[in-house]
Each structure stands twice: as C-alpha cells, then as structure tokens.
C-alpha cells in the first residue's frame, strides 16, 4: 500500500521564534481547505444531534423573536417600519442577524472549544474560527422558508434588487468572521471573553436597525450608521428583498464594507501574531 508519493516535492518547513507570517498562514489555510470542509461538516452533523425538534430550531428561533418584536415594538410601541408590514420588516432583518449572531458566537469560542486541535496537532489555526461560519448558512436557508411564507402572506413581491441579497448575506458572514477572529484569539488568553460574547451580541442587536428602521435617524447620522457593519447588512438585505429602507444608500453600505475590511485586516494580523503562543495558553 503506502507506495504512492505526494505529487509535489516535499516542502521544507522552517520553524523559529518569529513564527508564521500572515501570508504563510493564509497559504496554509488554502492547503488545508479539505479540513475546513470536514470541520464545517462535523459541526453541521453534530448540531442537532439528540434534539427532538432538530432543524426546526433554525426556524423557531427567528420566528418567535419576530412574534415578540411584532407585539412589543410593532403593535404596542408603534415603531415605524418604512411603510412595510411590521412582521415582514422585522423578520427580514432577523434572518441575517441570526446568521451573524450564531456565526460570531461559534467563531469566537472555536479555539477554546477545540483545545486538542491547538495543543495536540498542528493544523493552520486560522481554519478553526473559519469552519463554524458556514454551519449557520444551513439554518439561514431553512429559516428563509418562513420569510417566503410571510412575504406571500402579506403580498410583498421583491424587485430586481433581490439579486443583491447574497452579497449582504456574505457581508454578514464576513462581519462575523472579522469580529470572531479577534475574539477567538483574545479568548485563548483571556477567558473573560467567553462571558462577554452573549452580552456583546445582545447589545449589538439593539445597536442594529433590526427592530426599528435606520430611517429614524436624520442625516448625516443615518449614513454614519454604516460604521456598524450590521446596519449595512440588515438595511441592505431589507432593501434587496423589500425594496425599501436606508440600504438603498450606497454610502451607508460602502461605509459598512470599509468598516468590515478594516476590522478583518486588523483581526487577521492580531491573530497571526497571537497564534505563536496559542499552544502555551490553550
């Protein structure tokens, strides 16, 4: 059996105190892309093991949140909704939000949750916070069915902007990764992070126009709201599906994209530096 040889000539590995550069780590992630797939698949397979409702959870959580929001914000508090039926308005935002919140929490805890992948074997560490980002997409797909039902029920039809929706989904995942990669690295050294994550996500929800529209804010604040990348994601997704809202503003969305890229570059550089001591701390 073991007669076949790897196709490429054997690489030379050099290990010293300087560790691996970010470029080398990104190259290793590409070389280990199959592992990325297997880890994502493991998380997916294990996700709803030993639950009664299984994947129904993916639809129940955002739907129940939508109902609560509709009763308290839409019906009782009369929060405006850009002229849209409030349940559709809220659910359209809750979909990308749930994707983001789940991906962020899993990514931020990924290194701490997989200690043996850090201390017992060498795999490119950057893969570990990337793998959990994709599991949420399955939930997202399932929960989208409820959105379709709502839109049909309220007679809302999307326009050609619908084609832009995947871009905002991608931006949500990228935002989760940009923040997750910071928190994952910090989490290894400071376990306080673990307890901060649920709190952070909760605060961020209220800082994002999920239950209310960004149009409540006057300019220039409305555009500057884009500095919160999730404002760009949520308003953009709403605009793509429902054709209304601040997401139609290119300035707000561009600001969100710039903010995410800045966070991401900073996060990757911090991670690449912190990675050297992960095994000593994890």
């Amino acid at each position: 059996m073991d007669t076949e040889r790897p196709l490429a000539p054997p690489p030379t590995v050099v290990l010293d105190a300087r560790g691996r550069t970010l470029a080398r780590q990104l190259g290793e992630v590409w070389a280990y892309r199959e592992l990325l797939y297997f880890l994502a698949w493991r998380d997916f397979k294990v996700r709803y093991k030993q639950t009664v409702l299984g994947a129904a959870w993916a639809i129940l959580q955002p739907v129940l949140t939508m109902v609560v929001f509709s009763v308290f914000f839409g019906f009782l508090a009369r929060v405006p909704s850009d002229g849209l039926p409030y349940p559709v308005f809220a659910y359209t935002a809750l979909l990308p939000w749930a994707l983001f919140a789940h991906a962020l929490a899993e990514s931020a805890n990924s290194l701490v949750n997989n200690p043996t992948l850090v201390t017992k074997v060498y795999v490119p560490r950057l893969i570990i916070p990337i793998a959990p980002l994709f599991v949420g997409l399955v939930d997202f797909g399932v929960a989208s069915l409820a959105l379709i039902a709502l839109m049909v029920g309220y007679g809302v039809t999307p326009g050609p902007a619908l084609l832009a929706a995947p871009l905002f989904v991608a931006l949500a995942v990228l935002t989760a990764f940009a923040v997750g990669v910071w928190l994952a690295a910090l989490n290894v050294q400071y376990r306080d992070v673990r307890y901060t994550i649920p709190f952070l996500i909760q605060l961020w929800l209220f800082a994002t126009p999920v239950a209310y529209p960004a149009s409540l804010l006057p300019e220039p604040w409305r555009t500057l709201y884009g500095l919160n990348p999730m404002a760009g994601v949520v308003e953009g997704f709403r605009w793509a599906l429902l054709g209304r809202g601040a997401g139609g503003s290119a300035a707000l969305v561009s600001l969100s994209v710039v903010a995410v890229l800045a966070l991401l570059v900073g996060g990757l550089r911090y991670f690449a530096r912190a990675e050297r001591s992960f095994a000593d701390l994890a």
Partner: protein
Amino acid sequence: MTRASEPVIRVEGLSKRYRIGERVARYRTLRESLTGALRRPFGRRAADGADLVWALRDVSFEVPRGEILGVIGRNGAGKSTLLKVLSGITCPTEGTVRIHGRVVSLLEVGTGFHPELTGRENVYLNGAILGMRRAEMDRRFDDIVAFAQVERFVDTPVKHYSSGMYFRLAFAVAAHLSPEVVLVDEVLAVGDAEFQRKCLGKMGEAARQARTVLFVSHNMGAISAFCHRVVYLANGQVRAIGTPDAIVAQYLADVFGDDRTDLAELRGAGYGRTLRFTAIDLAADDGANVAFGAPLRFRVTLRSDVSAQELSLGASVFSVTGTCVGTLFTRERFAMAPGEARTFSLTLAGARLAPGSYYASVSVGHGGRDGGRLDFDLVVGRPAFHVLPMSPSGEAIADWNPAWGAIVFEDTRLQAEPG
C-alpha cells in the same frame, strides 16, 4: 526527492522558555493583566527572569533520512516540548528547526474524533486533521478499517465503541499516512499487546520506506528494539546521543544506578524514620549485569534507632517501563536492636527474567503476602540491573521481543493427546 545526504530534520540551538505557571495557570483573566499593567506600567512582563523556566536549552541534532531516532529522558526533561516544537504546535524561543518533507505528529491518536460521528466519518475527519488528502483517504479507507478490525462497526457512532476499538481505529488512521517524517509520542503505550506489536511493526515498515521517525518513549524495550539512534535529554539539554544500547544503559544508570544518589531521594515519602536502609546494592561479579537464569543477589544494610522484632524484607522487580514483574517477602524473620546496623544478603533464584533492564524496590517491615504489610522503610529504584541474553553456561537465548513480557516460561511440556 531531496538530496539523500541532507538531513531530513535539522535542529540548531533550539531553546524554549516558559513562564512558570503558564502551563499550570494556563490563562490569565483580563483583570490580572490590567492590575499587572497598573502595578508595573513600564516593566515588561517577562523581563525579570525570576519566573522563567527553560524547557529546552540549546538543543542541536540532525536526523538523516530513514532513521528512527528515539528520544528518552526523565519526566520534565523536555521530551514533550521538543515534539511540540518540531510539530509546529508551539514556537521556539530561540534557534531553528528545518524539516524537509511532510510531517505528521502523533502526540495523541484520534485528535478531533467526535463521539457522535460514525467510524467512517471520524476516519475522514482525523485524516484531514493529519493533513491527508481526501483522495488518499478514499484509497486507504478499506485498509484502515481492516487494520483496526472494526469492519462491522464502520457506520456506528464511535461513542458506542469499546475503548479498544476506538484506539485501534484512531491508530490505524495514523499508521496509514505516508508523510516523510513521523513524530510519535508514547501513543504506543496504549492498547492491547497484540495490537501494540502490530503498530510497532508498522513503524518498522515506515522506516524501511525511508521515512524518518522521531519516537519519544519511556519504554526502553521499544526504544532498543526499534531505534537506530537515541537522544537522551536531561534538564532541557542533550545529555547524550548515540546507539540505543549505550544511551539506554547510560540513562538507566543515571536514573536508578547512580551511586551518588542518596537513598533518601529514592525513599517513599514518610518512610525510614526509625528503621532504614543505609545501603542497597546488587551483589554481582559483573557490575550491574546478571546472566539470564542466574540468581539475583541483593546486599542491603539496615540501621535501626529502635527495637523491632519479627521483621522481614520485601522486594519487587520492575521492568523499565515501570511494570511490576513480581514481588517477594522473606520467610525468615529477624530483629533489630536500637543503634544496631546489620547487613543481609537476599537471593532470588528461578525468576527466569527475560533479557532486559530492571530495577527493584526493597522494603523492611512486618507481615507479608498472607495479609497486611506494614513497612518501616521503602526504597524504589535500587538496585538497577540488566539481564544479559546469555545464560551462565554461555548459551545465548534468541532475540527476546519485549512485547513477550518479562518472564521466560521454561518448564513447559507439549504432549499429543491420545487420539
């Protein structure tokens, strides 16, 4: 591939420093960091040097292609740290490691195994973690499952596996990789004897395919049987490097046979307060060597501060892996008077210890094998001795495989049943 003359692994001036408590406390809380920064706003955390410890200090060696290099040393000598640095798991503090070729490190088998996943799923996941391509896994999957003898349970979640099945499957994945360099930590210490032998055989096969293996173990038998060369680490430094026989002998001599070592360092905690051994030696013509089948003779000197009656000696023999091979309690009883010192000769014949290295523990106390035993003194690690693969009459016994155990059963008879 690469030039044959070039070493596959080159380690130069390798050092690794830990902050004390880093591995114990493991992580800090943010508050500790903040208060630390407030107390010493201008000081660098690690600058004072007092809380630093060098796990490796200026280690250099080279491993040529196809060599199996053993790494031995006491606990805390730096063996595991060396493996972690070579694996790329942790960064060296100083020095450089150069490795030509794909490396697989087996510090643990079954890394990433998930109990809810089936055997098949875990094989693929674990293979990917160890850097194997999916296409390679597809080709080897049947071999892996056959090697692990879990064909019937491939699609059962591994949480329903017995621990033996789990280990066999995990090891089988590792054994079927084809990297140029394999780094192995004592994973072979687990599993049943037959499977261990299979694994060791697989390692030998790996070396025949010009694969380079670095093998860390406490099992001197396995080290001697499989390694071409051995590195002996002590206090993070290379103490010796050379042939297995010479280095293992030196290591055992240092650990157990060091005559300068005070017996107090080998004494069990709390023993030897009123009655104690002052000398324990092997009575042999040939240093610490005993011919196969020859009786073992220990010479012990006892000193007592008190009066004690009905005393007996106990002794156990351990293989170098730390497994107790057997125990004796003397039938003869003796007494000690206050201030008295006496020397005894203890002979053990007919033990048929297999060729290899051993050490003994010796105790003095009341009672014996038919009930409780109360010891006054207990010393572990002295004397240490080697049983030579040569009987007193000069007859050599065949290469004894360490996996066959420590006793050679000799008084056996095979008869055909009348049929």
